[in-house]
């Protein structure tokens, strides 16, 4: 092979490799994007049916109920609508009533969000940005005592 042909072979290999990587990345992307929905959007039926997504809001005071095993049920709200959530497992240490949380999972047929993961952030004054925005949009940003409430 002439040097030129060699170079073309190499360039061809590289292009094939990059094309493969891009293809992999894009297919993986399609499957693994998690969209965020507010409780109002979920209540309005805008959330997907058989697809994992994220929902977030404030945990409603007094809504946390434990069953016999390690399953917990609670509601989250953005001030307009609430979504009931069930979760089987151990909640994060910073999970509290009134706290902003995000959970990942799917809606089941009964209108209950089955969470596979619940996230509460470890800065106690911290509100997940998505949750803060959802609350602002609904005009129900929790009272300025949010911070005081934590203490």
């Amino acid at each position, binding site marked *: *092979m002439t040097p030129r042909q*060699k170079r073309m*072979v*190499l360039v061809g290999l*590289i292009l094939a*490799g*990059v094309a*493969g*990587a891009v293809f*992999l*990345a894009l*297919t*993986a*992307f399609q*499957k*693994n*994007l*998690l*969209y*965020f929905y507010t409780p109002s959007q979920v209540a309005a039926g805008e959330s997907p049916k058989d697809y994992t997504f*994220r929902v977030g809001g404030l945990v409603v005071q007094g809504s946390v109920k*434990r069953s*016999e*095993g*390690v399953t917990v049920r609670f509601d989250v709200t953005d001030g307009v609508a609430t979504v009931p959530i069930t979760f*089987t*497992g*151990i*909640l994060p*240490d*910073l999970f509290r009533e009134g706290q902003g949380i*995000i959970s*990942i999972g799917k809606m089941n047929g009964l209108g209950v969000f089955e969470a596979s993961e619940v996230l509460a*952030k*470890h*800065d*106690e*004054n*911290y509100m*997940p*940005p*998505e949750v803060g*925005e959802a609350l602002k949009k609904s005009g129900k940003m929790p009272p300025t005592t949010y911070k005081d409430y*934590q*203490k």
Partner: protein
Amino acid sequence: MIAELGHFSLVMALMMALLQAIFPLWGAQRGVALWMAMAKPLAQSQFLFLLTAFVCLTASFVNNDFSVLYVAEHSNSSLPLYYRITAVWGAHEGSMLLWAFILGLWTCAVSVFSRSLSDAMLARVLGVMALVSIGIELFILFTSNPFDRIMPAPLDGNDMNPLLQDFGMTIHPPMLYMGYVGLSVAFSFAIAALLGGSLDSAWARWSRPWTLVAWIFLTFGITLGSWWAYYELGWGGWWFWDPVENASFMPWLVATALLHSLAVTEKRGAFKAWTVLLALFAFSLSLLGTFLVRSGVLTSVHAFASDPTRGLFILVFLGLVVGGSLMLYALRAPMVKDNARYGLVSKENLLLLNNILLVTAAASILLGTLYPLVLDALGLGKISVGSPYFTAVFAPVMAPMFLLAGIAPMFAWRQADASRIFQRMWPFFLASWVLGIGLVAVFLKADDIKAMAGLGMAFWLASGALLSLYSRVSLRANAWEGIRSQSPSVYGMTLAHLGAAVFLVGAVLSNQYSVEKIVRLAPGESTEIGGYRFQFNGVDEVPGPNYRAKEGSFQVFKGDKPVAELKPQKRFYKVQRNTMTEAAIDPGLLRDLYVALGEQMDKGAWSVRVYVKPFIRCIWLGGLLMMAGGLCAVSDRRYRLASAAIKQPVGVVAARRT
């Protein structure tokens, strides 16, 4: 008073950095020896001022000076002295000061250990590092001054974040920053070479040990971070593809590519322009990491307490650094000519493939990390990219990487004899795969293709590394002489490749065969998992310095034999009123036993998380082996002797513009 002294020192450091940027760079361009000579003393005095500032902040923490806002927010008088020192970099302002301090340390190190550099080159390197310092120091002074006072001073502080009150916090951030910031040296060498127009193998030889040291720290920092997350966060995972982890992993991937590419540039004079570009990318990704963590654009476990003006500042700074350096590259790189010739089948081309794969991996991680941010900024919705994306993309890119890394060390520079190498290697290739598939089929699961592929590749990589070492050694008359005659960098490469193999074994086996159970246990009850029986013996109250804890007591049995006693805690920190889970782990090379307390339920029962994780220690052992390989390579006397020998020709080389 101490805080004001610290503030003043920081301003002085900025002044030094300004002078250190202006005079040496200008002097190097104009050929004014006196101005160039100012670089060293200025760099060293900048470092002294940064050291003073850092010591002042530490002193404020040690003395519990709560009139300093940052101390009041992040410390408390009941915090043990050890954590009061760690708290210095426990939050934003202090960790930026640590960043600046470490940059000062690297700058000072370059000024001390680069006696062999030509005056113009050294002046340019230090000048460019000063430009980076100026950016960071302005950032600290204008947006995140740790020395700000609070009036009136509170009686006591708000305490350190309980999650960070741990040994991991003491060592992980400094090590990681040493790596991150250390890449600025390679960056500055690259910019200096572009400015001076002297892109040759001498440049690669100077840059190589510095890049290697930064890479060692980065490897260590990431390994530590992974280990810390594993035992501290209480979910038993070792890597979460969290955006902040990605922020440290991308520079690591590019720095690894850079190390391999520097070897080609130094030894063969090829890939010159590409190596420079990698050096620019590696540090740009470090800065991007800082931006991601510090600007608050991310929803992440690391990104707490952040503020948008800071983000804007870093974004502008990032734009200047990346834009400026790429512009300089675009102007200067076309002048660089690679005159090295090499065949299709050669070590050069295999290393090129290695580089392409590593950079592709880094790019796909970058895509997954930045895409949600871009979409959000454009108002197209809030999404996040989950870890399945990263595993789906990362594994197929890394698989050919591991396969090639097994055979690459056997290839010769310029032109390799492929058929001889294949003849030599195929029994090892076959044996690795038979062993990998056989072990999994016999001991684990007959149809577990992932584990088989993982083990096969790990054995192949390890056998390739050892075989290449053996064939180098056997060139000599006898074994002893062969072993002695090898350069430390050969051992370094062998160790690092073995480390990658060990890591792969750990990652694959722990991911495929970890078992997890979340159960409700009352005192006296027990649960079976992975051949072990965990018996819960109840919970006691235990006091701590600034917390009180509920400590569970577990006995673990294998059959009837007790193998471990585990005491996980649930801590309640009094000042921040936070609860923290402290997992209890019985470590072992072959398996870890892991227990974490969940929540208290009725009748003294607790929800409990139990794991058995096989071979998980291999993950960090692999990281440490890679690091040891780096240490081995950097101890190569060639870097010191060669730099002394090169002293004379340097002027000639620098003068001859390519």
